[in-house]
């Protein structure tokens, strides 16, 4: 009986994944088409900045011809799509380098920053959320709520500059720009330590706003769970309140928490633009922003594609995690 139901589940699971992947491909096409159309609506063209006073007027025309600017939009999109399927994302207009390489170079940095701040904020937020649920309306709870409000309201750039001033400039504790110390070419552990030192300020700044909003979710979700009947039942059975919440309450709050966490990942990976700018962290955020300002179409499309893929993977992962976390979902198909 046991074995039979597992294989049934696996069969359903496979079908489910296939269906989701199919939808995912359609979504990718839709997203890239829309973004392509939108960025082409921008006035101007990528070469406006290149034109100087003694430039031959025909120069810009020629450059635009080269990138196929005058082809009808659907054809341009089609060409891009065809190359993308061969993993060729084209050449960046401003960097004169393959888009795929530029993104790959910087993606690791954004990933590092994203994961670190994600980890910090998650740990803190869940910790605070659990504590608030355990001791609702205590003084500590109220203070935490107040801090959460403040955290959500402070603009990220302000907090970043504050960190630079206090920790970087006044106290001279930590470096506040770049990812590695210039001029020193460390290897191995020394390099890891150097990067870690540079990572502290950006990660903390990025974690702040995330923590603040996440705390409110975890707290609300846990409080709701805590007032459920089954907690009372568990306590009636002999568990202390604390044990009841942690053992039973968390399981149910998990779903809400997974939703929030999986929603945040695409945000993080598309690059915390402001944090990266303030701390001159060479990541995807800055790359994307510069590309949009300079109308570097191949770069914009490359990054859009990447973000779209990440979002889809995250959604899929979220669904899979749901079914792993909650048996009820598995059997509902």
């Amino acid at each position, binding site marked *: 009986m046991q074995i039979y139901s597992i294989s049934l589940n696996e069969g359903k699971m496979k079908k489910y994944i296939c269906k989701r992947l199919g939808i995912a491909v359609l979504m990718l096409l839709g997203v890239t088409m829309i973004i392509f159309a939108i960025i082409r609506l921008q006035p101007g063209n990528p070469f406006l900045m290149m034109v100087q006073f*003694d*430039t031959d007027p025909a*120069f810009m025309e020629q450059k635009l011809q080269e990138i196929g600017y005058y082809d009808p939009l659907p054809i341009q999109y089609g060409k891009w799509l065809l190359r993308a399927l061969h993993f060729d994302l084209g050449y960046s207009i401003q960097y*004169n380098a393959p888009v795929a390489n530029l993104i790959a*170079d910087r993606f690791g940095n954004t990933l590092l920053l994203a994961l670190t701040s994600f980890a910090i904020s998650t740990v803190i937020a869940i910790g605070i959320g659990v504590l608030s649920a355990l001791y609702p309306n205590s003084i500590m709870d109220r203070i935490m709520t107040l801090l959460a409000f403040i955290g959500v309201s402070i603009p990220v750039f302000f907090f970043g500059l504050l960190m630079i001033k206090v920790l970087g400039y006044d106290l001279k504790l930590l470096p506040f720009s*770049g990812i590695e110390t210039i001029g020193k070419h460390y290897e191995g552990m020394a390099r890891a330590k150097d990067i870690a030192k540079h990572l502290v300020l950006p990660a903390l700044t990025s974690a702040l706003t995330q923590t603040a909003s996440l705390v409110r979710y975890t707290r609300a979700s846990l409080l709701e769970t805590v007032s459920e009947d089954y907690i009372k039942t568990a306590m009636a059975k002999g568990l202390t309140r604390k044990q009841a919440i942690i053992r039973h309450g968390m399981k149910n709050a998990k779903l809400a928490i997974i939703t929030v966490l999986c929603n945040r990942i695409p945000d993080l990976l598309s690059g915390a633009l402001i944090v990266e700018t303030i701390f001159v962290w060479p990541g995807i955020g800055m790359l994307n922003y510069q590309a949009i300002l300079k109308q570097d179409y191949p770069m914009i499309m490359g990054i859009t594609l990447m973000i779209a893929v990440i979002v889809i993977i995250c959604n899929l992962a979220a669904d899979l995690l749901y079914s792993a976390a909650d048996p009820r979902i598995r059997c509902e198909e």
Partner: protein
Amino acid sequence: MKKKICMTLALAMTVSAVLAGCGVGAKNEGVTETKAVSAETKADTNKNTDASTDANTDASTNADTSVIYGTPTAPVGTFNPIISYMGSDNLINDLVYSALLDMKPDGSLTGSLAESYSVSDDQKTIEFTIHDGVKWHDGDDLTVDDVIFTLESIAISPDDFSKVSRIEGAADFRDGKSEHMSGITVDGNKITIRLTETYAPFLNKIGRCGIIPKHIWGEIPFEEWGTKTELLNNPIGSGPYMLTKYNSGESVELKAFEDYFEGAPKIETFVLKVVNGDAIAAELSSGNIDIVDVKELKNSEVEDLENEGFVKHSISDDMYQYISFNMRMPIFQDKNLRQAITYAIDRQSILDNIVEGRGSLIGAPFIPGGWAEPAAGELNDYAYNPDKAIELLEASGWKDEDGDGIRENKDGEKLQFTLRCSNDSKTRENAVLYVKECLKKVGIDINVSIEEDSLIADDCIFNHNFEMYALNCYFSSDPDPYFWWHSDSATDEPGSGSFNFGSYKNDDVDKYIIEAENTMDQNERAAYYLKVAKQINEDAPMIFLYVQNREIMTNPNLKGFDPGTFNVYYNVANWEMTE
């Protein structure tokens, strides 16, 4: 339970695999050193309290010194002076490549790669004598072939052809009709260039272009240069510094070139570091950078830095801010109206209050401090005079009959304009808003529209779709105003752009500009430019708002820094970092 553990482990492993695959940290790109180099360089800042541990450095060699130049715009890696166009890339190109001539801080030219040059009596032939024994960073010798190759590459580059267009045979060469430009001849280490006509700015244009190595770029067709990312990011030049590491978006590291033909630079390491515009003061103060532009900082911040001991160097900015009338519109053909508007604006107040006094006013498009600047007192300074403005307006029939505060003429046309301003400078935005107030007082209604840079470029520059607009205009390193003020530089059909945006056309100005181009004598040119200045000043087709000072602050230990507006790196090989 087991399933959960497995899934978590799987997730963790995937993540670490992705991390390892993507590569974290600054991307390593550097030229492998072909020559044995002295001891590894060490970053040395003056705020380093561990200075005493540098006991083993020999005081006379400065072997471990470094200078860090901070910039808010990251270079994009196109380190080939013929195809690069970003100012931040040129900051690197100017160190890596040497040029025929060097430019002193006042704008005059002196020999560099060309140890001397002479101009013939008919002013159409120039002879450059190239230094002997110049080497490229990869050890090869630089010869006249490289210089000719560079000139020929400029000729086939679509946007720079005009720089060499006056060399005899240039057009034929570009069109493929001949293998070389007939006007260029070589004799040993002397290159003689014959021009079809005298063109004063030629020396400047050709003299300041970086010379590129034929043995690297000669094999590759010009159209493909833009795709050679490896070569672009790892340039080989003959300049004082060679590029060792390009960290995209973050910094560029360079090392002194021991065999530099003018003597190895005294400072061993040069770093260009990208800094956030808001953290400039903090970076300078902490010793993270040694040189930085502080134009955008407030007076108080600059004073604070000066009090900490940093040195301020003040030179003219390479651009001026202006408001242009669209001279294609009939209403602006009336000189009284244009002059009235100019008189009605209190430009001194803008300079004193909005620019905080850190700049100067000009009456004509010539850079302050340059040799072509009209002498004081020669031009009408249009000092703030609202009464005179009103007098001129009424003389042209603009009166406010209906009492709504806006003047109109007999046909009922109102003095109402839209002034479009690009959003890339807060200072200019504030100036424009103040202009609106000034003009309101004399009965002119201005609707200010702050817009995105590229929109202004598109609409105003290419489609001539504007009434008035505010933007910045660059000074060229040679004062020739042809491309901005000659009637041939104006286009009136939508879709075609060139730099006489307002479409100002005046026969006398045209004549003087051409005459100034036809002589290489600096004094004669200055005399013509004075006439140009006076005419433009009289016609008032443009309101010259202000020229900001470009202030650069440096570490007090940096000696020998002597920047000019168009050559920040003047004398870079002799800069020193004392303790």
